[in-house]
């Protein structure tokens, strides 16, 4: 007795196999989507890292009146800041369409803008407005942004739709709290 493959018996599973394989091609897998996104961002212009001083900072907040603004102060040397980055990027992606603006401000030394900072952002960048601090006296800047802030980072500040500072968060453990706070901000500008 020879074992001849019974094509009829295999027809159905084979058909299923082929059809599901083509389903996969039609609906891109998450990895494929990410690859497409990466290609798209490669063709965008070089990442802008804008030096910013106190006046520039205030203008940046003002320019987004009507939206909820989350400012993230970070540095390449700050491990918890690096840890927070993808979480902040997720907030930007998910809540951007609902009126959240993320401003990312590096407090690395200004000389590192096109070296360490740019390299870091090319790996971790979340696609939001990115700045690097360029001031003479850091104490003045920190105090002017928030008198209660002593300079610890990661620091995340939440501004309401009128541009008023409402909440402050320090440390990577606070990102969930940040998300809750954003979601509970009033939906309309008063």
């Amino acid at each position, binding site marked *: 007795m020879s074992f001849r493959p019974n094509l009829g018996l295999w027809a159905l599973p084979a058909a299923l196999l082929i059809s599901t394989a083509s389903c996969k091609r039609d609906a891109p897998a998450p990895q494929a989507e990410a690859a497409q996104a990466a290609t798209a961002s490669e063709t965008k212009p070089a990442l802008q890292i804008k030096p910013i001083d106190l006046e520039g900072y205030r203008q940046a907040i003002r320019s987004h009146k009507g939206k909820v603004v989350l400012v993230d102060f970070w*540095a390449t*040397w*700050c491990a*918890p800041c690096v840890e927070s980055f993808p979480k902040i990027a997720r907030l930007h992606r998910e809540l951007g369409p609902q009126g959240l603006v993320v401003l990312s401000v590096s*407090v690395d*030394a200004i000389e590192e803008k096109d070296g360490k900072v740019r390299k870091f952002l090319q790996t971790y960048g979340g696609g939001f407005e990115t700045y690097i601090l360029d001031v003479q*006296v*850091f*104490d003045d800047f*920190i*105090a002017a942004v928030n008198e*209660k*802030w*002593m*300079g*610890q*980072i*990661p*620091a995340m500040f939440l501004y309401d739709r009128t541009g008023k500072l*409402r*909440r*402050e*968060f*320090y*440390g990577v453990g*606070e990102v969930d*709290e940040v998300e809750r*706070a954003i979601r*509970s901000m*009033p939906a309309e500008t*008063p």
Partner: protein
Amino acid sequence: MMNRLTAVAVFMAVLSVPAVAKVELGDKGPDFMLFGVDYKYHYLDKYQDAKAVVLVFTCNHCPVAKAYQDALIALGKKYQAKGIQFIAINTNPADMVAADGFPQMIERAKEKGFPYPYVYDETQQVSRAYGATHTPHIFVLGPERTVVYMGAVDNRHKAPHYLADALDAILAGEEIERPVTRQFGCTIKYRKQAKD
């Protein structure tokens, strides 16, 4: 409606803000008894003859704290010769940051030749009592052991040299021009407590 939301937001903000400076200028500096890498305990009375005591809340791992080691060693040597005592306090216990454990502290103090005690705030109670927020964070206790200066060492390794200026003022019996200053540093990893 908006006012109520604002009130709630402010209330929540107050609840969620972690320990910012607990001591105010003029407050008596909370005493402590902390074990050092010299295998001795250190407390304020031990230095009752000092003209002032400089508490440096720091740690092993933070890049900013590390970058300030040499500057603080130099300041320590200079001002201890003039009767002001420095004490470095590690604010991050090993369960929060493995690199900040006691054996690592001993290594670091030996390697850098700290001219002052390096003590371990294992429970973080002293750091909380002062309201240290990041490393490095300086608190200077003056002749009466009241807080006369809090904040930064300097302006990111440049002038103004806030701490040196404050110590010079103390030695000269003058008022400190800038008693509260700020600098970027690593948020202290406080353990979650029941009351947080």
